[in-house]
């Protein structure tokens, strides 16, 4: 079905009256369905079914099924197909990083966001005004996806998942060292690492391999499909095995990756005296780790930390900042203290998935 649909650009002719200077809210405006681009005739990461959707990345709170036409990177479309089945959208269209297309009265260009495989920031240009919707992004190194690209713009819509100065993620390689030290110290126990099945799990595996860990790594069933997809895209993850059916005793000294909700579930009883680890930026705060009963918190995040957010905002050169999903207040305050125009952008439906026990098949990330 890929490529078989009519190109979105051909279908829609903008009707907006041209103005010499566009106000940002005339280009992108929060609506019930998500961030709406009226002159382009589409929504970015809509949370409800819409006619045209432009999607930043494959996490389930951003990429939902049931839209008429979907524009996204090849990887994002593939992941949606794996999760929702062939008929997840009326039609799809692939866009590459750096490729620019005209949608109605605006030009849309995708840039790597460094968040997960295929993730993109979306630059929307109308007349002389360029707005970048960051989606989720990180400026830290990640062997499993294309690095974040800084996009100069007039208005930057940034995420703020970790928008408090207490969130500093440090070097993920050090956290993986912590995990390996624990495996060495407790060879008779199993190590269970909670990690979101799209992106985080593969990154943790890749980091383990980079640290020299070459034993087979075990996977919870919910991890298998996406992980295989990563491998099919040429990302080397070493030998992976399904944990299902493996005898309890054989799991001593091993590492298993599982969705976070599984690590405190009945499912863990198949492991010998498991050490429960959790790879997430939230693990920086003790109360959060303790609340989840985590024994080995690993501060590994797929979002920019405070330093990353503030550095990126400054470097875009944008004079106006919109802050969305996360800790908006602190980041808005910071922007204003630096003389930037800033306001929170109320978008609903982008999960703090960790606040609730999400079903395994549908869990998002952090």
């Amino acid at each position, binding site marked *: 079905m890929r490529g078989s649909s009519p190109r979105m650009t051909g279908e829609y002719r903008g009707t907006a009256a041209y103005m010499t200077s566009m106000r940002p809210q005339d280009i992108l405006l929060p609506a019930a369905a998500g961030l709406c681009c009226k002159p382009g005739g589409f929504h970015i990461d809509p949370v409800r079914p819409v006619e045209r959707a432009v999607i930043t990345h494959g996490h389930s709170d951003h990429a939902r099924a049931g839209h008429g036409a979907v524009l996204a990177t090849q990887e994002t479309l593939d992941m949606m197909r794996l999760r929702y089945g062939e008929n997840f959208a009326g039609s799809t269209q692939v866009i590459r990083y750096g490729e620019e297309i005209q949608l109605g009265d605006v030009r849309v260009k995708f840039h790597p966001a460094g968040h997960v495989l295929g993730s993109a920031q979306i630059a929307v240009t109308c007349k002389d005004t360029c707005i970048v919707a960051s989606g989720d992004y990180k400026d830290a190194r990640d062997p499993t996806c294309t690095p974040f690209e800084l996009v100069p713009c007039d208005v930057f819509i940034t995420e703020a998942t970790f928008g408090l100065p*207490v969130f500093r993620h440090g070097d993920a390689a050090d956290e993986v060292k912590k995990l390996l030290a624990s495996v060495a*110290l407790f060879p008779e126990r199993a190590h269970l690492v909670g990690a979101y099945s799209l992106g985080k799990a593969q990154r943790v595996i890749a980091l383990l391999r980079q640290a020299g860990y070459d034993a087979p790594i075990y996977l919870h069933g919910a991890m298998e499909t996406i992980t295989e997809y990563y491998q099919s895209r040429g990302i080397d993850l070493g030998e992976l095995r399904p944990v299902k059916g493996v005898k309890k005793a054989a799991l001593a000294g091993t590492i298993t990756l599982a969705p976070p909700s599984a690590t*405190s579930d009945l499912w863990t009883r198949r492991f010998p005296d498991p050490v429960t680890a959790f790879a997430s930026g939230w693990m920086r705060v003790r109360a959060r780790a*303790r609340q989840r009963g985590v*024994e080995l918190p690993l501060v590994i995040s797929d979002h920019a930390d405070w330093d990353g957010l503030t550095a990126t905002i400054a470097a875009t050169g944008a004079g106006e900042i919109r802050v969305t999903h996360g800790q908006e207040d602190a980041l808005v*305050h910071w922007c204003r203290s630096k003389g930037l125009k800033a306001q929170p952008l109320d978008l609903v439906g982008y999960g703090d998935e960790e606040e609730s026990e999400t079903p395994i098949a549908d869990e998002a990330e952090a």
Partner: protein
Amino acid sequence: MNRFAELLDRLAYEPGRNNKLRLITCYFREVGDPDRGYALAALTGALSFKHAKPALIRDLIAARTDEVLFGLSYDYVGDLSETVALMWPRAELAAHNNPPSPTLTEVVTTLRTLGKTELPKQLERWLDELDETGRWALLKLVTGALRIGISARLAKTAAAALGDKDPHEIELIWPGLSPPYLDLFAWLEGRGEKPVNRDPAPFRPVMLAHAIEDGDFAALDPVDYIAEWKWDGIRVQAVAGRDDRGHITARLYSRTGEDITGSFPDLVPSLRLPGAIDGELLILREGRVQSFNVLQQRLNRKVVSPKLIKEFPIHLRAYDLLGDDENDLRELPFVERRERLETFVRKLDDSRIDLSPTVPFASWEALTAARADPASAGAGEDADAVEGVMLKRRDAPYLPGRPKGQWWKWKRDPHIIDAVLMYAQRGHGKRSSYYSDYTFGVWTKGEGGDELVPVGKAYFGFTDEELLQIDRFVRRNTTEKFGPVRHVVHEGDKGLVLEVAFEGLQRSPRHKSGIAMRFPRISRLRWDKPPREADRLETLERMLNAEPAEIEV
């Protein structure tokens, strides 16, 4: 410091005792002297320096961060030290000028001698040099809030494991040691002689009893045993000895070997004969033993005021004599030690120290009767403070630990109520996939009729099989979830009744019910009983009133 911080960080999340031991031992193995010695001191509470006030920490962060951002962060994190550790701005130092982060030794030795005015500058420097975890540990250390759930005993046991030694050996020599314990580690690693305890009043590892069960009696002959009351106080060891100059040094130790002399200065003058008494610490008013609740009000006080001493007169009731002047009596049979004890206490002739009487009995039936009614069996007016009876083999030497078949404790039946399971929380470690912490309540009159009010929390007492059953019940009968806590159905005809055993009750303004339980545990599951037939708060209040009255202080 960063390595020590890493250890503390990991210990704070690790629920299992053996795993904690492994982590600490591994640290002692990896880290050299003198850092590991100061770590041992920190873990055993043996470090002493003036603590920094939280206000100082606040001032430091206020000077470096935006007030609004700090406020938002503190609200989110909820802990001052942690907030400051996480948001402390990175020092902007040239790479060639990057000082190494301080060692634990440097921190401890500097803090000992640092003047109050120099502290802020020094703290700033360290905070600049450490990583997030290092800053957190440093701030916890300097504010004296290093609570990580490690007992001194556990830390010593971990050190002992380094040299495959018995932790009792460390306890024996511990009072003569001081940080950074170079001689101790040298001995543990086989590089040096065992340190000699030159302490004139050393602690001796304590002998403990096994709980006796009905089936045990058949194999025991009453003639082999001496019985005595088990008093509901605090087991202590009172030791006095002569130093090099012939002066008497007296110390009071808890059963784990902690020096608690400072909390009971009023007992020290009575310990004037060299020797080591194993006994129970009690409060006596006009010759009557007070309940444990009363004693508890003298514990954990920072300042022991003259008023406290006067209102809670301390008393030592002696069970055993481990040393008599220079003589170590621990190898002697109990019956001979007991004779020496009687002579010793007579010679002391002090109103604060008396002998715990033995309970004569000819058969187990006779002892059962005495245990059921201590008042008529010799305990008289003190019967309320009797927790049960102790059985000690006449020929038993004094052995450290809990040797099999030598000493038995036979507690009086605990108090029992039927309560209704209200909330369940996941356990930790091995139990983290089970709902194993239970909050239970009893009925009371509420605005809209009878309602359940929580009266306690228990997380043991049940068998593994029963745990599985309760876990299954909780999962199937959850009405609401709050993070790790589940609300379990608790209505008149729907819910689970738990038989809860406990040792005593106390008034507690912190609990909604106004009552707190001592040592509650689940003794039986009452699947047969509908929740509406569970006990009422009034029953507990009656039990509370039956306990000896407390004095407000």
